[in-house]
């Protein structure tokens, strides 16, 4: 009997699912089993904060239907947890709806993700009258938060990082929450929300915006404990709450790997091929740590999933070279409507740190208008930055950062958007217009041609059109032509005035 190589993926999240897809797209013959401990098939975790705003049902975050997985011959098991990994024997002990089972594998991919961190001060047993305390990591969490939020009068979100701000903003926009007059407060220990990504001025702009969205933002606020009807802060202040959503960071799920004897630091240590310290064991996504840095965001996790799939298949395919991760950086983007916020790379360099040969820092600070932009450029490339309220340039800049493209030579023009406004925008006044300036693009009619036509008696747009074809193409120059005619008429009138000595 021919042996059909089996790959088991532990974790049915976005990275585990992606790894299964990538394996299947490379190999028809592999047996692929995905073990997810949640009751749902893989879903898009990133959308959960959107779901809190009420415009998307949590069920709509599902990535693929059961049929989709079946059609691709991927055995996706839900509500199935892995009890232990025997790295040397290449088996896993699983517990699922069918009871405990020992499953052998040829390759094992750990995509166990991360879990919400709950500060010890908040993990006291739930007492009657105490607020409900929830994290937001999985779909079930999201459904619980939504259910609790519908009945809550006071909701406290703890942690003003990216996710905390998004959760508070979403709840404040949810018609079932804010629409009922419930209060949403956001408690953050720092001086400004997202202070670890933004710094002072942009943080202050964000703080103002968050407050304008109806969120009661409390800065310098540390929750010291849970009490009946709310939270007690470190400074003694009491915050009423019947629901507390905690967003105080995540911890990689590494216990399985650790127990299997695999190297683990903050995450499961992987090399550039995404291999762990144990042969046949791979890791990808938030549970993994590469080059001393936990993965943390989705795109690097997806890339790791792809690299793992490639390298597993390369071992069966033979000739293919192993692939390595590109170690790509990703911009942090805050998902709220009211203010566009981006932070990326080594943003935390100040202009006054400048010294010859060091990074160039360009800062445009306009807090009154809710705008702030900082670009850190080194060796001609953008290595970091912060953009707040810079709607027109954020796409171009984050793509330059993402792609490693050359930075603009004139950084200030880039930030202010003046380089594109200068060209094409702002038609000069008739008097300032050079004679060869094209007024009607469609028919290539210059100012000179209009002046000549006017001199020959064409005094309105219709006559000009007859004479020069100006305005007869797309027609959008009609206003400009009228303006030039007005200017010419005024000049004529001026010329007719008796000369004064």
């Amino acid at each position, binding site marked *: 009997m021919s042996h059909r190589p089996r790959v088991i993926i532990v974790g049915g999240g976005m990275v585990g699912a*992606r790894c299964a897809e990538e394996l299947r*797209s490379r190999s028809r013959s592999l047996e692929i089993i995905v073990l997810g401990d949640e009751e749902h098939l893989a879903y*898009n975790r*990133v*959308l959960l904060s*959107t779901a809190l705003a*009420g*415009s*998307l049902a949590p069920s*709509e*975050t*599902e*990535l*693929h*239907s059961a049929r*989709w997985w079946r059609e691709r011959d991927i055995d996706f098991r839900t509500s199935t947890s892995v009890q232990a990994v025997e790295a040397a024997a290449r088996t896993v002990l699983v517990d699922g709806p069918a009871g405990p089972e020992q499953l052998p594998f040829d390759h094992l991919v750990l995509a166990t993700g991360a879990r919400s961190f709950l500060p010890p001060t908040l993990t006291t047993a739930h007492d009657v009258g105490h607020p409900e305390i929830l994290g937001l990591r999985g779909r079930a969490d999201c459904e619980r938060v939504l259910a609790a939020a519908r009945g809550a009068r006071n909701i406290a979100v703890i942690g003003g990082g990216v996710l905390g701000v998004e959760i508070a903003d979403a709840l404040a926009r949810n018609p079932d929450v804010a629409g009922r007059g419930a209060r949403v407060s956001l408690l953050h220990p720092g001086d400004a929300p997202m202070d670890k990504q933004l710094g002072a001025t942009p943080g202050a702009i964000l703080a103002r915006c968050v407050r304008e969205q109806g969120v009661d933002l409390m800065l310098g606020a540390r929750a010291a404990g849970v009490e009946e009807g709310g939270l007690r802060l470190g400074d003694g202040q009491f915050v009423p709450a019947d629901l507390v959503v905690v967003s105080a960071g995540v911890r990689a799920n590494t216990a399985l790997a650790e127990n299997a004897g695999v190297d683990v630091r903050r995450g499961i240590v992987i090399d550039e091929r995404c291999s762990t310290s144990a042969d046949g064991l791979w890791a990808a996504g938030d549970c993994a740590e590469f080059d001393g840095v936990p993965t943390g965001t*989705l*795109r690097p996790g*997806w*890339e790791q999933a*792809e690299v793992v799939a490639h390298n597993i298949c390369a071992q069966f395919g033979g000739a293919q070279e192993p692939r390595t991760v590109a170690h*790509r950086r990703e*911009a942090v*983007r805050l*998902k709220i*409507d009211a203010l*566009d916020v981006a932070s990326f790379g080594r943003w935390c360099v100040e202009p006054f740190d400048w010294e010859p040969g060091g990074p160039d820092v360009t800062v445009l600070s306009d807090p009154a208008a809710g705008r702030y932009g900082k670009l850190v450029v080194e060796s001609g490339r953008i290595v970091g930055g912060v953009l707040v309220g810079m*709607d*027109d*340039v*954020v*796409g*171009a800049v*984050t*793509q*330059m950062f*993402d*792609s*490693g*493209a*050359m930075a*603009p*030579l*004139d950084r200030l023009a880039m930030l202010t958007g003046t*380089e*594109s406004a*200068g*060209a*094409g*925008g702002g038609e000069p006044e008739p008097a300032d217009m050079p004679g060869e300036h094209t007024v009607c*693009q*469609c*028919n*290539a009619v210059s100012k000179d041609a209009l002046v000549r036509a006017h001199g020959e008696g064409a005094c309105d747009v219709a006559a000009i059109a007859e004479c020069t*074809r100006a305005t*007869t*193409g*797309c*027609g*959008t120059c009609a206003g400009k032509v009228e303006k030039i005619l007005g200017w010419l008429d005024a000049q004529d009138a001026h010329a007719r005035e008796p000369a004064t000595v």
Partner: protein
Amino acid sequence: MTRTDTHCPYCALQCGMALSPTTPSQDDVGRRVPLEVTPLDFPTNRGRLCRKGWSSAQVLGVGDRLTTPLLRRGGKSGELAPATWGEAFDVIAEAVHRASAGGREPDRVGVFGGGGLTNEKAYMLGKFARLGLGTSQIDYNGRWCMSSAAAGAARCFGLDRGMPFPLADLDDAEAILLVGANPAETMPPMVTHLDTARESGGLMVVDPRRSATARLADEAGGVHLQNRPGTDAALAAGLLHIAVTRGWADRDYIRDRTSGFDDAWAVASQWLPERTEAVTGVGVPALRAAVERLATAARAGRGAYILTARGAEQSSRGTDTVATWIALALALGLPGRKRSGWGTITGQGNGQGGREHGQKCDQLPGYRKITDPAARAHVAAVWGVDPDAIPGPGRSAFELLDACGRDVAADGRPGVQMLFVHASNPVVSAPDAARVAERLDTLDTLVVADFVPSETAQLADVVLPVRQWAEEEGTVTNLEGRVLRRRRAAEPPAGTRDELEILRALAERLGRPAHWFPTDPAEVFDELARASAGGAADYSAISHARLDAGEALHWPCGADSPGGTPRLFLGSFATADGRAVFSLDVGAPDTFDTRVAERQVVLTTGRLLGHYQSGAQTRRVPELHRTDPEATATMHPDTATSFDLADGVMVRIRGRAGSIEARVLLDPTSRRDTVFVPFHFPGAGRANLATEASLDPHSRMPDFKVNNVTMEAI
């Protein structure tokens, strides 16, 4: 002759114009009586014309107009010299005999048509190929124009008509998203139809360049989504993602009128706005604004349209890209309803009709599949032949050209030794143009029918001087599927012949019955109408007489729809179950590697206002040539600096296929990773010297818009 109402010879807007004889001026000495052009108040142009339209009549009398057949004497290195029509026909008939081994290998002879031919000629060219030559090897330049849009629309709606609604429906729409379209330069009079959207701040343009149209949008409070070339499908998926997550999707419509949403959402759900931004370079605020404007206008019934064009379609992933934009339109509930929809803006004058009546290698008249036995039986009955007499599918345009001069082509089948080219100039317009020119040069016999000595005609062994738009009768089908009459306004120059006459004469020389090839355009149209009856593009209730009576007829116009069909899909779509299909394939999620190789930029190509297609016509009009005399390479000043280039210097742009020479034109609104070269110029300035012929698996469209290149000063 007096005034004649007809349509402009150039783009698919087919502006209404009147032609009147006028007194020759000094410039016209020695030429035929010039015609004066007057714009008409026709629904597409409403009394407007661009400079190409105004000057169109000048092409009739250009100095090097071909008025006698030319034969290359003394082998391939010999010169083209005047010949009689009889000599030319003899040479061609003999060459057909030689190339096809006495008719035993008819596929060794190919035909290459054009989207500028009238419906009558396009139809007859297809019939000539299949019955006159007995070859399957016919395709046309529209393959490089509309084929991805056609394949995408056919996949999603079950039918391809560029705009499934009249152009004038756009007039009061408050939100219009143009994707890879630049009508302000390519078809200026169309802009009048965008006025409401513009004034409402709802004109939105997806274009890597800050084109004239993008500028119009931006200056009126609309949105310009200046994406990296080649990321259109990702952009569409990202917009669809936002539509769904923000609750702007039309759930009732999706349930009642579409299929496949769940699978589409499985793909789009992964196109998070932040990822879309990093891949496309379009900021999240602009993405959101675009979807919001479309959704808001659609919900309020104030008109919302998505129109795609070549910028998004001309790629080796063009069909999937179009399908993804259609998916966005479907998610918002736009197609098949009044006051909203998806459409494609057809480029060539008869790009629509040209793809319906048998010029495509896989189709028979009436937009029928050549592999469908019922379709073959119907057409065979109209033609009075056995269905088996009609050859099967042939090669697509590039594959056909690439098979030229080869004993065995890349597909393992016999190559092509002889080629007829009508209404096309592939030496300039084909991708990988140098390779195509080399292929044409190795043919046993190249026959080119044209009215000027185009770059392709200059390579020919036989050149046949034909007639132009104002010298012939016929019909064309414009971008909204409306059939129009093209009328004769001038006497053709002596020595030229109409292609319908040429095809009959050739068929007779090849021993075919003359009555298979009628030469009266009205009679040809009636036959075309019968051949199309019951097909997707049903013209059977249309006639020259009805059109001459002033009726506005959009196809399908047949037994069930004698009044024509201005708006398609209002009740149901043309798919088997009547539902529109969500089809979303953006490519493997992380194939969009935005990292750029050192010292590389993306070459993208397109049109200028003053020129049309390969420029063979417009380069001969002094006022058009003066404004845009040579190939230019538009780039950001930073890009120029990093390649040691300066404004006005000559640059060599080197791609994998080959290199272009062009003059640097600095434009600070350019993307820094993109250089733009228009494709109208000949010789070393041919943009297509650097475009690659990697083909879309569905439409066989090459990559015209995205090619990685390096640059150096010359």
